[in-house]
């Protein structure tokens, strides 16, 4: 009974997040669900408190990263990146794609998937349009890399932040183990995109960057981000949690850009933070009432290559059914009990897997099909075919690279 209620609350929160009804915002449904679980005694106060203390630092880190990315936007970082991509392309579409790869991979790794999807992708579209290059391969590349290039660092994806906390790895060890899988994922994307869009990328675009396409380089913001990265690397040595370093960087940049406090608060997306926290507590309750043992019965044990491949595959399937955030919350406690290797294999699955559909999961895709049958945006069979070419290959190759890194490092 308790298990059924916890699962219904979880399902209701996910339905609200996917369907986005105006009258029932996802964060309110999830928060209401937590209150219901507490009121019915399915979740004890003690359990809720321990879940909050587990998730709190992660949510704080997430908030700091969102504000840091917004500070970079204010400083003109993304326009500058657009200018750099245009200059580096030298009027050739294939070179522009290489520049998009470089910029999207670094943006995702350092400022997270959200920054690439929300802030960089529109800039990539504008850059391609201004250069009179077909924007399709470049926009699709940017969207794919937001997922597959988010393997590298703990802050590259919310899934990584959650796993980082649970894995007990240091920042540098996480990045060290994930460097090779990250590079392999990028290589798979490059080869497949380059072949799939050979026609669009052929020859030279007739127009190269104009002087107006060269915005000022935001040196201060770049320096803040670089110092934050160095700080993350040293965090375990100096004994300061990376979240505090991110918060410091976010505040310094916001002060420099004179961002009003109200806008900083909006950039942190408080409703999203509430949603993540509440969803984490709900999954914690469901896990205690049987979800964890159900997941554990599915998951293999050990860190051999076949086991890691199975973990990545199961994680990718669940991420595609539900979305990667709930998939991570559900699998993480089980994977963490088998060690860091399984946690990282899970991340390969939940980070690369969502490229199979352009909306992140089949549940979302199904909803869009029903709700917006005549929407142009849903007419993206080509994007799905691209996903079918990159995802299975990327999953297998990156997991093999992870296995190798675990043997060597």
């Amino acid at each position, binding site marked *: 009974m308790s298990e059924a209620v916890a699962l219904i609350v979880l399902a209701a929160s996910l339905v609200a997040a996917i369907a986005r009804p105006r009258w029932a915002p996802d964060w309110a449904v999830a928060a209401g669900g937590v209150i219901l679980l507490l009121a019915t005694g399915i979740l004890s106060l003690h359990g809720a408190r321990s879940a909050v203390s587990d998730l709190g630092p992660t949510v704080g880190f997430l908030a700091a990263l969102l504000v840091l990315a917004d500070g970079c936007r204010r400083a003109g970082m993304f326009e500058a990146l657009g200018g750099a991509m245009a200059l580096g392309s030298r009027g050739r579409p294939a070179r522009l794609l290489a520049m998009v790869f470089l910029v999207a991979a670094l943006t995702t790794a350092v400022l997270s998937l959200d920054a690439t999807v929300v802030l960089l992708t529109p800039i990539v579209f504008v850059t391609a*349009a201004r250069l009179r290059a077909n924007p399709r391969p470049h926009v699709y590349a940017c969207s794919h890399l937001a997922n597959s290039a988010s393997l590298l660092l703990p802050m590259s994806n919310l899934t990584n932040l959650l796993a980082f906390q649970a894995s007990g790895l240091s920042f540098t060890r996480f990045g060290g183990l994930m460097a090779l899988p990250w590079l392999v994922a990028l290589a798979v994307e490059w080869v497949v995109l380059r072949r799939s869009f050979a026609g669009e990328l052929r020859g030279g675009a007739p127009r190269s960057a104009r002087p107006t396409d060269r915005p000022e380089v935001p040196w201060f913001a770049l320096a803040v981000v670089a110092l934050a990265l160095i700080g993350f690397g040293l965090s375990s040595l100096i004994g300061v949690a990376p979240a505090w370093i991110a918060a410091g960087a976010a505040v310094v940049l916001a002060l420099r850009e004179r961002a009003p406090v109200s806008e900083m608060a909006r950039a942190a997306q408080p409703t999203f933070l509430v949603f993540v926290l509440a969803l984490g507590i709900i999954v914690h309750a469901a896990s205690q009432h049987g979800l964890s043992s159900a997941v554990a019965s599915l998951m293999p044990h050990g860190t051999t290559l076949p086991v890691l491949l199975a973990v990545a595959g199961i994680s990718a399937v669940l991420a595609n059914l539900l979305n990667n955030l709930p998939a991570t919350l559900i699998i993480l406690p089980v994977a963490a009990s088998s060690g860091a290797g399984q946690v990282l294999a899970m991340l390969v699955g939940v980070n690369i897997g969502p490229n199979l559909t352009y909306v992140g999961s089949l549940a979302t895709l199904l909803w869009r099909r029903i709700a917006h049958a005549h929407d142009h*945006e849903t007419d993206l069979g080509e994007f799905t075919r691209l996903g079918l070419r990159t995802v299975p290959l990327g999953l297998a190759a990156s997991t093999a690279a992870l296995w190798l890194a675990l043997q060597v490092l």
Partner: protein
Amino acid sequence: MRAVVWISEGTWQACVDEAAAFLPKDADVTLLHVAPSDVEEFAARGPGRLLGRHPPPPPPADPPLRAVAEEEAQALLADAQTRLARPAHTVSRRGRVEREVVAACASADLLVLARDGEARLGPKSLGKHTRFALDHVPCQVLLVWPEAPPGIETIPPPPRDHH
């Protein structure tokens, strides 16, 4: 004679040059550009694909992607008209590229379009949308190589005989 010249980013110069060379002086010329609206919407609606996120809307100073796409389409059509150096109508459409091109040719006598695939003889010299337009337009077609046509030696070898 009503002729439609399909202007697209990579190949428009060749189309305009062949149109200028081959079309009769009294032809009624329309320069057509079609923007694929799906890519632009895909780029603009990123936040909607991220579970639970509700980022603040972009500041009003940022031009919407649609405005950028329309501005660039107009600039391209203006460049094409200058290169053509004779009177022509310009038409800018949005939507599914291949369908819009066919629709724009409903009452035309001739479509001028360019190959946009591989630079050698064979079916791969046509991109997907170009192939669709070529197969479906209800009028005559002038099909242009964007650069000098490849030599006869680039023809694919004949299929092996099976006895």
